């Protein structure tokens, strides 16, 4: 962790974040703090900017305006070495994006070995430990194409964890899965949340959000329209937009 970073500060501090694609404002002034240990879920209608918000956090999308402090460092500053900070922000994609030309074990160790100067033995030992935790130790030598969707996504989560991140970003991690495989991925995420991993999760799984989140953000038209803790979020929505949204998805 950054030594200048004061643990009292939020882990991630987003201020007036704006992202435009040409004429379209995908994010329209988003401000939010994410604290260490937070499990923040982001929900909202399609096209509301959830993915864009998440992808701006590790600058897979370049923000048009606004500021993101991560561990006290302004990562929107072009002078910041974003590659270094990305090592501390694990990301899990809807489409898994495992590296098809590498075995599972290689998928998990290439980052630690190439970026964190770990020996192959050390990286493999750590990877195997994590694989065991998600019940996939026996697939270490397999290639991604030999795995089911649910297994791939669990591996993708482990791949991010192998970098020992300070926060995990999830963009609809179960949306590409067959229904019978959703549970195994959610259960890995539930474990992570219980171990107090800081997480930002974009999802359409409302029941899961209610169960696991400590905060839920509702986004619409590029803004955070409402935020609350889970029970109040679902029981007592304040804005009409959220009421309307919940009436459709629940």
């Amino acid at each position, binding site marked *: 962790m950054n030594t200048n970073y004061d643990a009292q500060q939020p882990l991630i501090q987003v201020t007036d974040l704006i992202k435009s694609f040409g004429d379209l404002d995908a994010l329209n002034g988003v401000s939010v703090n994410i604290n260490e240990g937070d499990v923040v879920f982001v929900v909202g209608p399609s096209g509301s900017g959830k993915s864009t918000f998440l992808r701006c956090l590790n600058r897979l999308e370049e923000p048009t305006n606004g500021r993101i402090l991560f561990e006290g460092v302004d990562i929107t500053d072009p002078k910041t070495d974003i590659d270094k900070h*990305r090592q501390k922000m694990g990301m899990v994609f809807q489409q898994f994006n495992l*590296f*098809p030309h590498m075995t599972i074990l290689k998928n998990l160790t*290439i980052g630690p070995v190439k970026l964190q100067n770990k020996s192959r033995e050390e990286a493999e030992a750590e990877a195997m430990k994590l694989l065991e935790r998600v019940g996939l130790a026996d697939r270490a030598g397999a290639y991604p194409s030999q795995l089911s969707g649910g297994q791939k996504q669990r591996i993708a989560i482990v791949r*991010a964890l192998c970098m020992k991140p300070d926060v995990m970003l999830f963009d609809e991690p179960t949306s590409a899965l067959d229904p019978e495989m959703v549970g195994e991925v959610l259960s890995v995420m539930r474990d992570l949340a219980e171990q107090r991993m800081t997480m930002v999760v974009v999802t359409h799984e409302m029941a899961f959000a209610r169960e696991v989140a400590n905060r839920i953000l509702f986004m619409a038209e590029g803004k955070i329209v409402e935020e609350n803790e889970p029970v109040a979020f679902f029981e007592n929505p304040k804005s009409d937009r959220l009421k309307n949204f919940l009436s459709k998805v629940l």
Partner: protein
Amino acid sequence: MDQLIEKFYMNFIKEDRWQYITNGLRVTLTVTFFAVIMGIVLGFLVAVVRSTYDKTGKMKILNIICNVYLTIIRGTPVVVQLLITYFVIFGSVNINKVVVAVIAFGVNSGAYVAEIIRSGIMSVDNGQFEAGRSIGFTYGQTMLYIILPQAFKNVLPALANEFIVLLKETSVAGYIALEDLTKGGDIIRSRTYDAFMPLIAVAVIYLVMVMIFNYFVKCLERRLRNSEH
């Protein structure tokens, strides 16, 4: 039958004429081998520059240079390029013709290899790129560890085809009086006034080389495919 043996003797045995074929074959293989290596290196570099420009907008000047190179090479016949390399570029220096041929064919092949590899890079899903970057790899590391290996695999058949084309294309080396396989056969023809035997022999040798090469590529492809399933 006797006549055939007589002809064979005249074309290949008499005055050790078979050496035109073997020496020519050696020249053809040497030129092809080094031109292929040069083509791959050039092609990789150009492809990476072009893809980097497409993806990030960086390397603008280099990209322009690469585009000029591609346009000229792909817009002119290889024989003309060979003649220009020999008589214009190296016109005033004393230089081995094999080296001239390697440079001319290598530079020519590089342009085609570049476009093949670039199409390979484009064919890799952008999610792979994002996954690499999200782990913390730089642009270059992502290219090297994640994109290029997949791109290379995707275009292996096209690359193999390009090398077969190159092997056959070197047959115009005779234009700068380089005695390659084709020229060797043609020299025999001019000595014996028999076109059939030397030229058919040359054709068969090319054909066999291409078939052998094809066989190895098939094996390699199968192995690459097995490693991914």
